[in-house]
């Protein structure tokens, strides 16, 4: 089966293509402008493997969390391709992808994406010796202290004495994390590979179910500030139809 996978959720762009022969991946870490680079990268990778977009059977996309605009570029491209060519569409969590960069059954694996203002999109995974990943902490938008508290109790509960953080620009935060765990037995490490790999999305395909393409939207993990503020005085009206055809 030919599968195209992409991630535009973080500052790096990753596109992967699985063909009958092999899986190839192209990454760009030099630019945040995914709108410019996503489609030319897809064109390039297809040409390299002598395939057309229509030769693909499925499209997989990092659904978020991550940069809102970035996620939307990939999600819109992926869902439109799948829709107009009648292909299967799969969404995969950006954090689940990051977690799969680490294979250490002793550790609690902590994928994090900087959400600015000292907040993070984060979750936690364990992996067994066969390479099966289990989500141990629900994906959330959380501040630094809240995350540390949750990780601390989760590590104790699971008997893990090692946390491996995985995600972009963690070098700056590593010492901060280490300080917070300094009085505990828990050892802090940062993963060797901190990039989101589209190739790993293809490897997760057998665990995913196809999406309803029209209804497929990014996983933001966070309402907009305007909606949060509005809900404070008006209550939650999530069922409301705010977009209507005229």
């Amino acid at each position, binding site marked *: 089966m030919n599968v195209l996978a992409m991630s535009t959720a973080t500052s790096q762009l990753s596109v992967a293509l699985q063909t009958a022969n092999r899986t190839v991946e192209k990454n760009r870490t030099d630019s945040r*402008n995914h*709108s*410019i*680079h*996503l*489609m*030319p990268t*897809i*064109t390039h990778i297809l040409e390299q493997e002598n395939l*057309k*977009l*229509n030769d693909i059977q499925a499209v997989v996309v990092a659904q978020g969390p991550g940069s*809102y*605009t970035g996620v*939307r*570029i990939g*999600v*819109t*491209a*992926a*869902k*439109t*391709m799948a*829709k*107009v*060519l009648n292909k299967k569409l799969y969404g995969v969590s950006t954090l689940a992808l990051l977690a799969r960069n680490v294979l250490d059954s002793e550790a609690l694996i902590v994928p994090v994406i900087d959400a600015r203002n000292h907040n993070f999109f984060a979750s936690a995974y364990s992996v067994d010796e066969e390479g099966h990943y289990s989500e141990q902490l629900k994906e959330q938008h959380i501040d630094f202290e809240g995350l540390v508290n949750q990780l601390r109790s989760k590590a104790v509960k699971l008997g893990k004495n090692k946390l491996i953080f995985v995600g972009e620009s963690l070098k700056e935060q590593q010492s901060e994390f280490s300080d917070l765990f300094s009085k505990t037995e828990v050892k802090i490490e940062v993963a060797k590979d901190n990039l989101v790999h589209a190739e790993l999305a293809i490897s997760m395909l057998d665990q995913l179910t196809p999406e309803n*393409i*029209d*209804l497929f*939207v*990014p996983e*933001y993990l966070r309402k*907009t*500030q*305007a*909606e949060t503020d*509005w809900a404070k005085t*008006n209550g939650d009206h999530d069922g*409301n*139809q*705010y*977009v*209507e*055809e*005229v």
Partner: protein
Amino acid sequence: MSETEQNLILAFETSCDETSVSVVKNGTEILSNMIATQVKSHQRFGGVVPEVASRHHVEIITMLITEALEKAGVTYQDLDAVAVTKGPGLVGALLIGISAAKAVAMAYNLPLIGTNHIAGHIKAANLVDKVEYPALALVVSGGHTELVSMKTPSDYEIIGDTRDDAAGESYDKVGRVMGINYPAGKTIDEMAHQGSETFDFPRAMMKEDNYDFSFSGLKSAFINTVHHADQVGETLDKNDLATSFQSAVVEVLVHKTVKAIAEYQPKTFILAGGVAANQGLRQALTEAINQQFPDLKVIIPPLRLCGDNAAMIGAAAYQQFLDQDFSDMSLNAEPGLEFPYEGE
């Protein structure tokens, strides 16, 4: 494309708070023009919130593509090109249309056309009648107030624009002061027809020897009038306020437009943009032009084609198709895109 063949463009428009997908034939005939508005959502916030707008566009974009093709009765194989608004507009919103348009273009190996949103508003005229050149357009919307001269169907030059607020923006701002829900243009227009001009609001830049506009002084005068009345406990007639405000806006727009027509001698005049739906403006401009330039062809698109829609993008993109003005897959949003100024 030979003379007898038909040209079909699938067009996308997502520059602000309308998601629209359309199929346009030969740049003049609408086969479908699906429009989804988010106005109910943004009414919660009193104006368009860019992040919310972008989120809504993703929610509905593929449904509209399917509907646009079904309604037009065409398949992807029938298409000749895919067009999309590249700017001006909200960057995050523009990127949804651009990403979707690229995906369709790549999927069916079609040329991609990045279109200027304002050119779209002007070219909406082609969906109504044949435009003869040179042409002159007054574009009035929530974000723009400009007079555009076109020597040919492919050339757009700004001969005058607003130095501060756009006309539509000033409607929303004074609307807020009167407690009118966003967007306020339509309500103020209706109120203006019921009141009389009892307040003397300023007409900016009327005497200056250029085609530029300014609406912030008018807005401030309006707000001061209302606040002053509030302070002394006086209640002002809102319809009279609306009439007085609208008269000031319309008078300046008409004055500068008439002056520009006299100098540029266009064969066609086009009123374009969301505020072109304003009845007061439509009437006043039509009357002034009929009186002073009875032979001038005037095109004022119907209401549905004045607001943001993808058919107008298809109409503008058709000229680009003829000019072979295509974009490649690296097309990006240009939120601040502008026509060149005359002589630039």
